């Protein structure tokens, strides 16, 4: 799509007063629409754009986000990438509410790189369930600001005071004379007006779209195969590439025994050596793939000191043993009272060690990259990504050009769950850039699912040792936990040796229960795998550890786990309410075992989690069938403070439950001799439709600061399941996935 920038320079803006840029362009243009707004000659455009960008605080420059078309529909550039979480629809709801345009009349795309979109402290990424939280106020003001300019333009056109005007969706109304103007008619005039100094936001009680189950904007295209993912990108004259990676990271291609044969295969254009990989370029991806897999490559051993080279003797079992054998008190992250003293004077001490394996993301769209070098020296990339500016910066380094010469397109993501952050060894675009340069034509590189299983970043492996002290009456007086392993945040954003990476302990730390003495610590052990962020990050396993241990503590003190939680939350109204809500949603708390109508013996387990600014309580109902766990129902009460779209929340909770069940029951990456044993879904089962439980959701708007939605439904699921299993089985689950264990039922 050609985009014509229509900015005029802005004057200085202060950061605390976001809308006082006195003059600037307003309504831009999209391909096929009329050119609206102020045309700026191409030659001076970059300078002006820079000046404007330097002047405007992120999220305030209306034309960077909003273009109103002649038919009054809105083209909106979202700072956040859509990957199924519903963020494009949320943006349309939030901006549309204040702009007074029905969200259904929005067309939303991911914004290109640029300082306007750095809504998270000047940076931007789509992750951490942070999109709505970080932009809600800004995007409301942006919509209101644009509406103010349309009102002013209408006042001039109709020669009436602004105060006499109002809006209806997509129109400015003059009630006194019965006249009205469509937004599309005054878009151009509005562009020349100053931005209002102040804007008035709608009262939440008057919201028409925020908080309502508005239909998602991307559903019909996704139901008819029309959505274009990165892997569907076509550019003129492109060739296809496929790669074969070094089986172990750090190895380089040595000799290619049959290169000559492969080169002359039908459709093959060329054979290439890349860092850590070989590639074949051909006229179709299938031919490229067959050819590259036919290449007989001798891989070199990683040179000594190669960062993150995969050791030849690395095995999952061996690393797990190492984590379990690593003893000590660790570096403290959270401390309250004196846990050591309370433990030594406790009437009873409970101890347990828990563990969780590496996981892959398994998003259904395999990674790809389309790279095109343009005649003007720019490099254009179509790549799945959660952080356009970071990818732009890194691509510029690979291409050895200035970042502003890298044009990034961020198509809809075919799932992400943390997969598409900037993980250098896990992204195909550096290869695509080099190949496109080498052959002088655009390249579409797709990683086969097998290459993806080899190079995806993994959720870190984790082990936690817990100790709890109970008093005479079975009440917990102290909890001490030492997590052993490495966190993803430290890996990618720098780790300070004397500090604990919060992503390694979140979900063990930050628990809500009133236990007077706590000590939560970590021992860092390098994870030999390339680790990354996986939906709900540390919480995805840490809440399994801590909430399952909670039930062990309750059982040791002969307390019902629901009643004990209620007791320890009695001073926290928000959590107390939430816990009661999930119990009520499930028809009243009952732990079981009980007989279900179908004759199976079932039990329920409970868990609470506080991930990403939201509060969640979860109950799972399970039975055992031939020693394997069957999950029948999951009830989730979620309190994100306030909400934008209840239907999207319900669907996101369903999705998070699915991934939670999948990880609890099935998923585990196994390395032997430095090689992952599974290279496709046949060796790494993920949740199938027949294993999906019914999901029941209750949303509670406590009015607390707005929290996340995409991830919070997940962490409570594995512990709720495990706690239910503990009721039925002779053995308490302390290790994931549960499918490793054949559980024996307790005698009734």
């Amino acid at each position, binding site marked *: 799509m050609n985009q014509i920038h229509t900015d005029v320079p802005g004057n200085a803006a202060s950061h605390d007063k976001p809308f006082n840029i006195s003059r600037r362009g307003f309504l831009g243009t999209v391909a096929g629409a009329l050119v609206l707004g102020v045309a700026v000659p191409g030659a001076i455009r970059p300078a002006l754009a820079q000046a404007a960008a330097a002047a405007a605080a992120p999220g305030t420059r209306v034309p960077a986000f909003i273009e109103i078309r002649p038919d009054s529909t809105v083209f909106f550039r979202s700072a956040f990438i859509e990957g199924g979480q519903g963020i494009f629809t949320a943006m349309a709801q939030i901006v549309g509410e204040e702009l007074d345009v029905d969200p259904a009349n929005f067309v939303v795309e991911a914004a290109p790189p640029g300082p306007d979109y750095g809504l998270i402290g000047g940076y931007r990424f789509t992750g951490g369930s942070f999109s709505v939280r970080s932009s809600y106020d800004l995007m409301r003001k942006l919509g209101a600001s644009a509406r103010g300019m349309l009102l002013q333009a209408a006042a001039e056109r109709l020669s009436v005071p602004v105060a006499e005007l109002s809006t209806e969706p997509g129109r400015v109304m003059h009630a006194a004379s019965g006249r009205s103007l469509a937004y599309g008619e005054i878009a151009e005039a509005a562009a020349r007006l100053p931005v209002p100094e102040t804007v008035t936001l709608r009262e939440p009680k008057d919201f028409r779209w925020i908080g309502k189950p508005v239909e998602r904007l991307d*559903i019909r295209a996704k139901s008819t195969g029309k959505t274009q993912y990165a892997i569907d990108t076509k550019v003129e004259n492109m060739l296809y590439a496929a790669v074969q990676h070094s089986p172990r990271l750090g190895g380089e291609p040595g000799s290619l025994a049959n290169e000559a044969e492969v080169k002359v295969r039908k459709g093959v254009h060329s054979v290439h050596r890349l860092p850590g990989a070989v590639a074949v370029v051909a006229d179709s*991806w299938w031919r490229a793939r067959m050819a590259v897999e036919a290449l007989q490559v001798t891989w070199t051993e990683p040179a000594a000191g190669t960062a993150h080279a995969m050791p030849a003797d690395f095995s999952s079992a061996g690393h797990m043993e190492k984590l379990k054998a690593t003893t000590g008190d660790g570096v403290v992250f959270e401390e309250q009272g004196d846990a050591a003293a309370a433990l030594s004077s406790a009437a009873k001490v409970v101890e347990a060690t828990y563990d969780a394996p590496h996981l892959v993301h398994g*998003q259904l769209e395999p990674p790809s990259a389309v790279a095109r070098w343009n005649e003007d020296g720019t490099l254009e990339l179509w790549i799945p990504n959660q952080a356009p500016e970071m990818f732009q910066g890194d691509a510029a380094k690979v291409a050895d050009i200035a970042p502003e010469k890298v044009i990034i397109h961020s198509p809809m993501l075919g*799932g992400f769950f943390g997969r598409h952050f900037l993980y250098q060894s896990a992204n195909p675009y550096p290869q695509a850039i080099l190949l496109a340069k080498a052959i002088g034509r655009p390249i579409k590189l797709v990683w086969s699912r097998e290459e993806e299983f080899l190079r995806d970043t993994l959720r870190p492996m984790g082990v936690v040792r817990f100790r709890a002290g109970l008093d005479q009456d079975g009440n917990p007086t102290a909890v001490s936990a030492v997590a052993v392993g490495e966190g993803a945040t430290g890996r990618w954003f720098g780790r300070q040796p004397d500090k604990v990476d919060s992503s390694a302990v979140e979900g063990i730390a930050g628990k809500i229960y009133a236990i007077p003495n706590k000590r939560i610590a970590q021992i860092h052990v390098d994870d030999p795998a390339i680790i990354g962020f996986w939906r709900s990050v540390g919480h995805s396993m840490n809440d399994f550890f801590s909430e399952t241990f909670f039930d062990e503590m309750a059982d040791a003190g002969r307390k019902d786990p629901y009643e004990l939680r209620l007791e320890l939350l009695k001073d926290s109204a928000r959590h107390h309410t939430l816990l009661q809500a999930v119990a009520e949603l499930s028809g009243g708390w009952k732990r079981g075992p009980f007989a279900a109508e179908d004759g199976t013996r079932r039990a329920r387990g409970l868990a609470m989690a506080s991930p990403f600014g939201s509060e969640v309580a979860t109950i799972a109902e399970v039975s055992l069938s031939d020693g394997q766990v069957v999950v029948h129902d999951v009830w989730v009460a979620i309190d994100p403070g306030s909400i934008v779209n209840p239907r999207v929340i319900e*669907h996101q909770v369903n999705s*998070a439950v699915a991934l939670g069940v999948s990880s609890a029951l099935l998923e585990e990456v196994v390395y032997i001799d430095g090689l992952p044993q599974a290279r496709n879904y046949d060796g790494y089962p993920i949740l199938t439709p027949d294993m999906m439980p019914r999901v029941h959701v209750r949303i509670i708007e406590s009015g607390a600061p707005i929290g996340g939605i995409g991830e919070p439904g997940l962490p409570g699921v594995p512990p709720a399941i495990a706690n239910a299993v503990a009721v039925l089985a002779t053995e308490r689950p302390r290790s994931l996935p549960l499918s490793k264990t054949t559980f024996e039922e307790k005698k009734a």
Partner: protein
Amino acid sequence: MELNINGIRQEVDIEADTPLLWALRDTLGMTGTKYGCGVAQCGACTVLVDGQPTRSCVTTVDTVVGTQITTIEAITDDPVGRKVVEAWVVNQVPQCGYCQSGQVMAATALLKETPQPTDDGIAAAMVNLCRCGTYNAIAAAVRDAAQA
């Protein structure tokens, strides 16, 4: 080789053992059919071959010469396909959407064969993977489409 896709004859000059998926996506530029696994595990590549849901990633083109191939691109040309799409919209089924071409094709095949499937029939036919976990919405949408 000549393929009949969505009622149109198309000539493809490729090896006989090329999977239909890549003939569609690369040779013919029809990218609505998706690549997920390539080994008949996920169903993202589901198309109809003479009405039967078929995993095009493991179906070589020489085996479908002379058949009627239907892809997601033609889904709304079919009355049952239209009902399925409407039910998908009403139930707001897709999340990332990547599996949904295959899901819609599988549902259409089911309802063309069995207009009023039982819940067990739905479970037996709707076996494609969805990493976003839209399974409950899919089942609800298939039930709705059967009623429509």
